């Protein structure tokens, strides 16, 4: 390439880079076509890796991500991606634990339930869970709440 003018060499280099980028784009575009969105309630997925999550911001109402019931917050998309690939979001939202407790649950799922390595994303997932689903001190027996009062006719 030494015989070519510098400008042309730069141009070719740039062209090559664009081709590579297009290639990557096409590759992941194809991947996207094969991927899926959040499972509907009760829908069963072959879960072996996190789900792709897109456009969840538009699905948040009053601080709740409507399709899953998750509290909206930093890390929500990661939690949807990794947790709901295998089980319902309800299994998360009905539970409460501190950061250590959530980490134990993740380790247990990795040890026994085929959960994958969460890599660097684990810290953000633990932040989300421990902030939004922390234990609430309830005492030894909590008062009856949400009583649905009605006239009893005998």
């Amino acid at each position, binding site marked *: 390439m030494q015989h070519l003018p510098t400008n042309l060499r730069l141009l070719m280099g740039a062209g090559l880079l664009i081709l590579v980028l297009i290639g990557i784009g096409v590759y992941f575009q194809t991947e996207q076509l094969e991927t899926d969105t959040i499972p509907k309630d009760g829908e069963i997925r072959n879960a072996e890796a996190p789900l792709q999550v897109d456009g969840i911001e538009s699905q948040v109402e009053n601080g709740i991500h409507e399709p899953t019931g998750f509290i909206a917050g930093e890390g929500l998309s990661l939690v949807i991606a990794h947790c709901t690939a295998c089980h319902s979001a309800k299994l998360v939202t009905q539970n409460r634990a501190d950061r250590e407790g959530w980490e134990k649950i993740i380790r247990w799922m990795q040890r026994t339930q085929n959960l994958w390595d969460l890599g*660097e994303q684990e810290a953000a997932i633990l932040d989300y869970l421990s902030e939004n689903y922390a234990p609430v001190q309830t005492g030894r027996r909590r008062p009856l709440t949400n009583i649905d009062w009605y006239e009893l006719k005998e």
Partner: protein
Amino acid sequence: MKKSFNRRKFIKNASLGSMAALLGAEIVYALPEGYTPLALQQNQDPGKLFGKHKEMRVLNDLPWNIEAQAHLLDDSVTPAAKMFIRNNGLIPEEIDPESWTLTIKGESVTQEKTYSLETLKSQFPMHTYQLVLECGGNGRSEYYPPAKGNQWTIGAVSCASWTGIRLRDVLRDVGVNEDAVYIGYYGADTHLSRDPDKNPISRGIPLNKAMEDQTLLAFAMNGEDIPVAHGYPLRLIASGFPASASGKWIHTLSIRNKIHDGEKMAPPSYSVPCEPVEPGTEVPNEAMCIIENMPVKSLITYPKSGALIGAGQPLSIRGHAWAGAKKVQTVDYSIDFGATWKSCSLQEPVNPFAWQRFEATISFPEKGYYEVWAKATDSDGISQPMLTPGWNPKGYLNNACHRIAIKIS
């Protein structure tokens, strides 16, 4: 089922974090290639899917876990519509009763044998009993610190009429060696990860429990085929034990010369600390004991909590009480938070392991807010606690008294 193991390896080998950084995106890709959505489970309405009552509470839909509320359990014999569902895995997709078989094997079987459903039904005498099934984690939601898992309140209990053959009769037919101590079950449900090499649950019962009159291999519930969600076409019924011992969709039983070691058999699953512990204690597995019989418990099933009644109007209450392998001796009620107790009338069980109906008529002294608390006492004189009982890491065995709110105006 087609599995995308190559892609999975690809994801595993590339660190998620580094890939995310490379792509400048937060998420790497989900690759559920070739999965088959279950026609049965695509519909999210448990009313349409399983014929459940509209007031049943869905705790989890993957896997399905659904509980009743106290007032739904008023029937003496629980109908399928009001029976809780507790699944660890996915309900089997295709069930063919014509080709279904039960194989009895294990270290302590005299001779391994396989039966068709038809053979089981025709070769052994049929028995019908009303039998309580209660999830070991029923009441888990009241423990603090919280225990992980489905947060059952009070509705993971039922007493349906089960028809089948005695497990004992089948065991005698195959022959049980002298060193046998435990029976383990294997069902046709699928692990949540869809890994065909993993069982969602494979528990069992000690041999002496297997030999009891009411321990059945059941074909029918309330006079009809067992609903699919409850174990069609063959379910082990071991009433009195946590309902996880009553395996669903059974295709294999293993006669073991040691405590069965299937999935969810080993502590901490369905186990509690052998000695009482302070709430929140980390308990090593070797200090945990497998739960056998469930404790005494009761539910007020009428009226529904929240009744408003007029001053001077008497209130009739009723409900059920049960006590694992024991009988319920007495049921009392209190309208003053346990300061005084009055006795309820109590019926005998129709058969061992059936729940018992209790009733009372209450007069309230003045206007105001009341709670009616019910407390059952078993044949050993052991009662339900008013507070949550001893904390345990997995939140089992909460048999605290049930109570309902009443206002007199």
